């Protein structure tokens, strides 16, 4: 009978799992007349899903298409189980894909016995299974809860789970129905150990008969009790609590045993050690352990410490003695004589110039002799030779003791005996086994080339380079072996890289999962992987970086999805977690700096001012799923009112509105189907300069395109109104353009090219910046004043040789501008034309740029011996020292930055520059110079900067002489 049961069971199982081969065969090869994808009985209409169907209407039905469709669905991560049904439809076949959506647990609830904290249980489960585990893992999660209860004294705990749908997106709430059973209680407690150590111990361990027994808590308290004894010097103390399983319905007996051991005393005998070193060298107190390894570590540490001090033969054996309840561990320290370096020489040097090796012999006669240091120098010599092709070089340090008058100070002569061996030069580089990639591509830019010295580590690097090139071409299993073949004299080597290419893997489908608002087309456009293209490593990384840089996603993960066992094609799954589409940010701070202010005597002075400032920005991203965004930025700063200038009650001390800015921006990445980004903005702002304030409002359209990682080109059109007010310069001293156009309308075209190869924007160590801007304001486009303005700038950053990063930074900025001539009829107070002696209307000719467009300089990022905008030539500063700005600008900077020590670095700088009224006035002899120094602190916000600049050529103005020093506090480097 048993045989019958087994046979029938197996037969039925086999029947259930078998495909209906005959029927399937009849359907294969028919034309598909209809395809329907169903989830929970409803048709799936998501285009992202339907495009994954490989058995489209009109196709001939193949199992390969069916299989691929299933794999795509599963890879997408939204569906678990997939079944495919076919039904004859005339001569064709109607297909139905029945998919079961993956259920994810988004909420955990606990019902039943509430003894354990639900929050802790939830945190445990999330920690182990993730924030949104698949519902299929609920049995594992239930078992984890059971284990948790058992550890807390509920040996019979039982947990069941049930799920409740949370929404239509396959999310469920999991409810854990907990039946913890009886908690074990403490039965009989016995304590064994010294009376002093066990007094009150059961109570401290929470062992009260009849009370619940929590195994986790008991273990923690046992550890605490043991630590307390060790804290008293009993490093061998052991506290143990043995729980005997509770009989049915009874309490669990607990046997507590304390093995106290002896109190430990550490003694140092012999030569003295610095007191503050002992604890670090001998870790017994720190680790509260007298295990043999710990004691041996102490001896070894003492000996190493002394040997690094030059006591080459130092010993510090440890001995244990026990008496009267004390374990005494004695370290007998014997330094032995101090060894100092005598003569140091290198012998056997023939192939390389001796002076090349001398910097490596960083050993000075008289310094303590340290074996490790000698070995390090020997290693450096070997490496120096090997890099130059001497693969077989050997360097043997030979130590001799010539003797000396003082037995406590032993001189040691060191001779590095060098056996150079032959110098091996690469005589050829070959690639064997490469068919898919051209040899020229594989060998391009390799380190080892014909004629270069053979260096084995470089060979390994080159091997990796070739392998990586294969991986980037989709040959994921490519393996490259390097086989160097030396000639008989070992002076030449031919390096052959033997390649086993393996199959090339191409991208089949690119599946995008996790997007609700973002268009999958946008994701596919951003990535560098393409269907049909090779599945390359760098392309995966680049794609990941590009998607992350969009700022649309909290998480981006790109994985290869298995594609059966077919190596030649893989689906690429891009799993995304979208960030909230609306984000708001705000912040505030203080701006500290020197500002030019008018004194009671109507002169300009630099005053230290603290200006509170804040901003708020709200952005709506990913509009229409196309990564378009709209944002509104507002910022405001306050400054101490200037009684000499400001009017109204707020002028009597306190703060007034200093600067504000409101900008609304619409951004369209990849505008007009091009690689560039477009931006449209409207703005309203108020700003301050040293000698005037301004209000500006306008609109801008901008297009920027990045041609390479370093090169960006930008074009912009702006149309704005600027009103100048709060002038510190008397009307009669103002330029004609400022008097005629206190409010000016500008219509400006702007173009900019910048090449930036800095390694770090905030704190560069190497790289260059080269940029050029051109502004043109055209009356033909509605500008009241016409001008053209050019500005070029270049910065260079170079790290000096050496192990510590000293950095030299230099910069040059040059700006020139020219106003277009504009003729303006002169009007009287009544607005009528003023006539000249000849009866003709008088006309003023304007050739200057409006104040808001002129060049100013001086300040924390230009010439640091001057406050903001306070630098000018005689023609661009008035008699009181207020700047009027000019049509030309020169700024030169040089700076030496020290390596930071504990986040703090120093700089010394030399700045020069000036502003000239006309471009033709530029003269290097007129540049004003300043030198100074500063401190940089690497704060979490970036480099915090404090600079003091000193004018090297102070000048006199009508009301006094310039101040010598100006200081600045700011963020980031000066340039």
């Amino acid at each position: 009978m048993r045989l019958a049961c087994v046979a029938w069971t197996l037969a039925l199982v086999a029947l259930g799992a078998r495909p209906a081969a005959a029927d399937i065969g009849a359907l294969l090869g028919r034309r598909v007349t209809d395809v329907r994808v169903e989830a929970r009985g409803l048709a799936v209409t998501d285009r992202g899903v339907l495009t994954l169907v490989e058995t489209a209407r009109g196709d001939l039905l193949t199992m390969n298409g069916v299989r691929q469709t299933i794999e795509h669905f599963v890879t997408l991560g939204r569906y678990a189980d997939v079944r495919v049904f076919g039904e004859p439809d005339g001569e064709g076949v109607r297909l139905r894909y029945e998919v079961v959506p993956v259920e994810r647990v988004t909420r955990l609830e606990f019902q039943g016995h509430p003894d354990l904290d639900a929050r802790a249980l939830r945190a445990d489960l999330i920690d182990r299974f993730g924030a949104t585990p698949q519902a299929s893992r609920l049995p594992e999660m239930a078992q984890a809860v059971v284990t948790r209860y058992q550890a807390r004294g509920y040996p019979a705990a039982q947990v069941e789970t049930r799920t409740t749908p949370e929404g239509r997106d396959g999310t469920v709430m999991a409810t854990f129905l907990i039946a913890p059973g009886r908690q074990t209680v403490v039965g009989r407690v016995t304590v064994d150990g010294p009376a002093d150590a066990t007094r009150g111990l059961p109570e401290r361990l929470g062992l009260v008969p009849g009370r619940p027994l929590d195994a986790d808590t008991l273990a923690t308290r046992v550890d605490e009790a043991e630590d307390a004894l060790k804290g008293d010097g009993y490093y061998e103390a052991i506290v143990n609590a043995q729980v005997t399983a509770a009989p049915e319905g009874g309490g669990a007996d607990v046997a507590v045993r304390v093995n106290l051991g002896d109190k430990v005393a550490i003694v140092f005998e012999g030569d003295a050690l610095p007191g503050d070193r002992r604890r670090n060298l001998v870790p017994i107190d720190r680790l509260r352990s007298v295990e043999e390894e710990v004691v041996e570590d102490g001896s070894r540490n003492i000996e190493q410490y002394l040997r690094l001090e030059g006591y080459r033969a130092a010993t510090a054996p440890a001995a244990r003695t026990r008496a009267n309840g004390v374990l005494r561990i004695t370290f007998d320290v014997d330094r032995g004589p101090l060894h100092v370096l005598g003569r140091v020489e290198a012998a056997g040097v023939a192939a390389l110039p001796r002076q090349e090796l001398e910097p490596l012999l960083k050993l000075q006669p008289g310094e303590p002799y340290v074996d490790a240091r000698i070995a390090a120098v020997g290693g450096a010599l070997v490496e120096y030779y090997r890099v130059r092709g001497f693969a077989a070089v050997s360097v043997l340090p030979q130590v001799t003791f010539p003797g000396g008058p003082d037995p406590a100070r032993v001189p040691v002569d060191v001779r590095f005996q060098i056996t150079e061996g032959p110098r091996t030069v690469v005589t050829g580089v070959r690639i064997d086994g490469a068919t898919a990639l051209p040899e020229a591509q594989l060998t391009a830019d390799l380190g080892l080339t014909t004629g270069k010295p053979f260096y084995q580590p470089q060979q390994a690097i080159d091997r990796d380079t070739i392998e990586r090139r294969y991986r980037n071409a989709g040959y994921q299993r490519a393996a490259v072996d390097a086989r160097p073949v030396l000639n008989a004299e070992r002076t030449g080597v031919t390096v052959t890289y033997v390649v086993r290419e393996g199959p090339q893997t191409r991208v089949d489908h690119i599946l995008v999962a996790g997007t609700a608002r973002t268009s999958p087309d946008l994701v596919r456009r951003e990535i560098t992987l393409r269907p049909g293209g090779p599945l390359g490593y760098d392309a995966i990384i680049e794609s990941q970086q590009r998607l992350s840089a969009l700022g649309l996603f909290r998480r981006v993960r790109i994985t290869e999805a298995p594609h059966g066992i077919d190596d030649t094609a893989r689906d690429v799954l891009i799993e995304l977690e979208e960030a909230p589409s609306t984000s708001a940010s705000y912040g505030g701070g203080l701006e500290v700096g020197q500002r030019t202010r008018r004194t009671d005597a109507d002169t300009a002075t630099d005053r230290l001012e603290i200006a509170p400032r804040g901003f708020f920005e709200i952005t709506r991203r990913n509009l229409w799923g196309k990564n378009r965004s709209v944002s509104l930025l507002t910022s405001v700063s306050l400054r101490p009112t200037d009684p000499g200038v400001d009017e109204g009650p707020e002028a009597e001390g306190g703060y007034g509105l200093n600067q504000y800015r409101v900008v609304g921006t619409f951004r369209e990445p990849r505008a007009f189907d091009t690689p560039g980004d477009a931006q449209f903005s409207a703005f309203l702002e108020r700003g301050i300069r040293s000698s005037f304030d301004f209000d500006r409002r306008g609109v801008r359209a901008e297009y920027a395109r990045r041609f390479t990682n370093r090169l960006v080109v930008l074009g912009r059109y702006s149309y704005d109104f600027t009103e100048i007010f709060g002038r510190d310069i008397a009307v009669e001293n103002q330029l004609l353009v400022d008097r005629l156009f206190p409010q000016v309308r500008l219509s400006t075209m702007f173009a900019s090219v910048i090449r930036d190869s800095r390694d770090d924007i905030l704190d560069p160590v190497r790289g260059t910046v080269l940029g050029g801007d051109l502004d043109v304001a055209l009356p033909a486009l509605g500008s009241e004043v016409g001008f053209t303005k050019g500005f070029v700038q270049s910065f260079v950053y170079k790290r000096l040789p050496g192990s510590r990063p000293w950095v030299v930074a230099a910069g040059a900025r040059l700006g020139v501008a020219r106003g277009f001539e504009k003729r303006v009829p002169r009007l009287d107070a009544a607005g009528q034309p003023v006539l000249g002696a000849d009866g003709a209307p008088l006309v003023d000719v304007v050739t200057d740029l409006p104040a808001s467009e002129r060049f100013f300089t001086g300040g924390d990022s230009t010439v640091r011996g001057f406050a903001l905008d306070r630098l000018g030539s005689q023609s661009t500063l008035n008699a009181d020292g207020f700047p009027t700005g000019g049509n030309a600008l020169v700024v030169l900077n040089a700076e030496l930055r020290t390596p930071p020590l504990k986040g703090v670095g120093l700089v010394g700088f030399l700045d020069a520059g000036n502003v000239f009224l006309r471009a033709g006035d530029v003269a290097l002899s007129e540049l004003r110079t300043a030198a100074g120094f500063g401190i940089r602190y690497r704060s979490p916000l970036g480099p915090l900067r404090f600079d003091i600049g000193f004018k090297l050529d102070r000048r006199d103005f009508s009301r006094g002489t310039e101040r010598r020093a100006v200081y600045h506090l700011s963020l980031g480097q000066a340039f």
Partner: protein
Amino acid sequence: MTPNPLGLVGLVLLVLLVAGPAGQAQTAARAAAPPGTETLIERTLAIVGGAVVTQSDVSLALALGLVEGPAAATPESALAALIDRWLMLNEVARFAPAEPAAAAVESRLAVLRARAGDAETITRRLSEAGRAASYLTAWVRDDLRIAAYLEQRFASTGTPSEPDVAAYAQRQAAEFEAAGLTGDAALTAARVRLVQERRRDLITDWLADLRRRTSVVTFAPRP
């Protein structure tokens, strides 16, 4: 002992169902189900670390003899073997062992083809399972990669001590004597067996660990 007729009928049915798909496929009428009647064409049976094992994978493995020994006994054991194979392949992929030599692939492929049947049968079975002709080559290559990985990872399973060898030989004395192995020969055979058993145990533990670390979902039949 009287044979149970019911059991015999079951056995016959089992043999027909499990061992005879080729014959059945060849002889069964290729008529489609009547209109209005759906036929289950394909379904997922398991997902192993993201890899799908389908019903036709299991059928193909049985039909072509891709799984051997006890694994070939039933669809369930074949499915379990395919799941184990995916677990191992996922692990092997992490360490990217060298590509097997072409000669080794060809040699093994020849053995497999000989076992699977004539070329026409193989092509038809592959097509019915939605697999390309290169499937067998890829299968064999993966087999060799797994074997290379196992060899590398479990090569040094430790030499059993002499007392262990002696005890094993003692336990298996009857079997060894029956095979004509006595004295040192029996000890040598015992040593080889012990090493093999230990290796097998290690691999079993390793697979169990892989199962714990990998998401493996198997699907119960749905109505």
